[in-house]
């Protein structure tokens, strides 16, 4: 277990100070301390810290709106906290632009650092610093993409839901129609049956009618013959009668 001896160190500093004062070896402390505090930070680390603070801002922004973005599924979420899809798209866009700028900034820093003539260790150090920043950026991007994935998943789920409900509606309608069609087909069967039955009857009627027509024709012929016969018979009767009368007349004449 490590022991913090910073306090001991500070005490040693005091001891040495007093010892030095006693010996008479003094150092000008106050002025140079002030100067030290305002020692300029070199350009590289300033810029690097800027990039990091930007990325942190992005991260905070994403985390802040994460709940609303993801719309954490509470049933009682008021309209105030709900985000429209437009707002979400806006956030997406902004975040992407931001990330791109950040990675551009990192690349720029890297190329700048490579151009500069600096000792190897500092070069290595700066390279490693830029790597760390990139990893940080990647981490934040991952946050964003996770959020987005949830949202996209949510959207797909919604669409899924919608499609499912549409489909189920269609299914209902189709079922209804199916029922009706079934009925119609049943009725049609019945009709067909009846029609078939009627067909036989009509056939028989047809037969009868044909027979009747023939009979009537024959009848007509018979009547015609009968009329003829009748007429001929009449002629013969007439002749007989005439003959009889003539015979009578003859007889009468003869006897006379």
């Amino acid at each position, binding site marked *: *277990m*490590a022991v913090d001896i*910073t306090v001991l160190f500070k005490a040693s*500093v005091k001891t040495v*100070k007093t010892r030095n004062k006693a010996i008479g070896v003094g150092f000008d402390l106050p002025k140079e301390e002030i100067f030290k505090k305002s020692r300029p930070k070199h350009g590289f680390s300033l810029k690097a810290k800027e990039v990091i603070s930007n990325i942190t801002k992005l*991260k905070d922004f994403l985390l802040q709106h994460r709940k609303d973005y993801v719309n954490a599924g509470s049933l009682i979420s008021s309209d105030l906290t709900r985000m429209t899809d437009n707002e979400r798209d806006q956030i997406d866009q902004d975040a992407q632009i931001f990330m791109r700028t950040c990675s551009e900034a990192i690349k720029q820093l890297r190329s700048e650092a490579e151009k500069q003539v600096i000792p190897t260790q500092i070069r290595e150090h700066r390279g490693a610093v830029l790597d*760390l920043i990139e990893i940080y950026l990647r981490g934040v991007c991952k946050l964003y993409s996770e959020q987005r994935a949830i949202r996209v998943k949510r959207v797909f789920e919604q669409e899924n839901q919608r499609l499912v409900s549409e489909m189920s509606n269609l299914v209902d309608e189709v079922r209804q129609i199916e029922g009706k069609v079934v009925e119609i087909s049943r009725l049609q069967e019945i009709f067909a049956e009846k029609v078939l039955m009627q067909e036989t009857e009509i056939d028989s009627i047809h037969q009868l009618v044909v027979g009747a027509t023939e009979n009537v024709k024959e009848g007509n012929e018979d009547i015609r013959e009968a009329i003829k016969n009748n007429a001929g018979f009449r002629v013969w009767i007439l002749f007989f009668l005439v003959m009889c009368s003539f015979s009578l007349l003859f007889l009468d004449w003869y006897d006379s």
Partner: protein
Amino acid sequence: MAASVREKQAAALKRMLNFNTSPLKNTAAEPVWKVLIYDRFGQDIISPLLAVKELRDMGITLHLLLHSDRDPIPDVPAIYFVMPTEENIDRICQDLRNQLYESYYLNFISAISRSKLEDIASAALSANAVTQVTKVFDQYLNFITLEDDMFILCNQNKELISYHAINKPDIMDTEMEAIMDTIVDSLFCFFVTLGAVPIIRCPRGNAAEMVAVKLDKKLRENLRDARNSLFTGDNMGAGQFSFQRPLFVLADRNLDLATPLHHTWTYQALIHDVLDFHLNRVSMDESVGSEASPSGARPKKKNKKSYDLTAADKFWQKHKGSPFPEVAESVQEELDTYRAQEDEVKRLKSIMGLEGEDEGPISSISMSDNTAKLTSAVSSLPELLEKKRLIDLHTNVATAVLDHIKSRKLDVYFEYEEKLMSKSTLEKSLLDIISDPDAGTPEDKMRLFLIFYITALQPPSETDLDQYKKALLETGCDLSSLNYIKQWNLFSRVMNSGSQFVMEGVKHLVLKQHNLPVTRILDNLMEMKSNPETDDYRYFDPKMLRGSESSTPRNKNPFQEAIVFVVGGGNYIEYQNLVDYTKAKPGKRVLYGCSELFNAGQFIKQLSSLGQK
């Protein structure tokens, strides 16, 4: 789950690298960049724990050695992690005067003395940089953790506390004091980081006892100092050792000289033995051709490759203690699984390629399947690539080890030595092996002979000895180490009556589960068994009001946690033996530490230089 020492040390380092505050869990936090300055000690501590990538992730843009030319980077905070030595302090003062960085966070690996602190204070005053020195910390991290349960004291300047340094016959009291102080300082840091006050047991009459006495004194002083005690409240952690305090066993290398010379058969120990293995990093020559002869008769194009064997490497964690044949099989298995997965990905690729054209019923049915499979394949690609890299790594390492084994016939040595150490019957005569020109380097033969000499119940007769010596000289061995062993042997035989080198053979399989002497001692002490060897050990409890000379422990319960520390050096064979012992006893934790880590070759060199005196 209790954090291991490695995790604790890594956590302490990470905290330090975060300007001595707890690191936030928030991944999308603003990056703060800093520069890390360390000395070689700091480098050795950090490198097994944190990879360069992890350092980068924590915002460290540059990591530099203290004593190198450093350019001023005026708008960056600098974190120093150094030992508080004279030259380091001077260099820090110089940095302050040159105003290299914007602010300074000074972390000292072990506690800095008041006078040196004042040196820095005066340099800061003269450079008007007092406000820039933002924080000064004593980190108490002066030890190197290699594994979850293994640590060593230091890698730099390890000659100062090596076996040679401790045991040389002409050592002066002041030198010994300095060595003991170094060791005790590191052990103290270790216990501060662990957050526990142990109960110390040590044998009598050697360096280990001296270390124990000093450590006990230091812990006691620190506990008494209620204001600055490092073992209060929040240090104790979340009840890691809540019921019991751990047992700290100090052992001296001299109780077992045969194990460091032993030829071994487990993966990690083999790598340490035959290849160049430091601080979890293997360096080997990668030759283009695959026939590597040890003498390098036809040197092909060689480039040095180094591999890190880390905690993240699952294969390594699983197999570092396995016998080598198992490792070879497992590598093959891993390769097969990898190929299968690779084929799966290829198959998916071809299916997706065909999918647009082929309107057959099969593809349309399995369309949704494929998308899921494809996603899983894509996401598992980095894993696959990593797996491939590890498989390649282990294939290379295992091949190199295998080459050494084959050319030096290390398996023969291993078996023979196992038999020697367990006192079972020998099939081949020692002389045959020594005179065999194919089997092994002169160093191997020397090792074998030394083990024979050490483990023999009776020292061999003069004629036998001469025979052996002749044979050894013929093969080019250096006999000075033998001289030292002879002296040591006489000395130790006088001290202890019984033969101290008996290994218990538990199972009669090819690789027996032996308990090495260190493990045996630990077992006795941890389980409170009575054994003539360990009954005489001294007992220290820094929390007791008065130190006692007695050897009777106060509590009779077996310990759940133990730390074994070998003064004079240790190696992976002992570590592996302890790990195996712990595996057989669930619920117990054992940590292994040593003042330095050497393989057999390095140990023989030390013995030789001791024997030449």
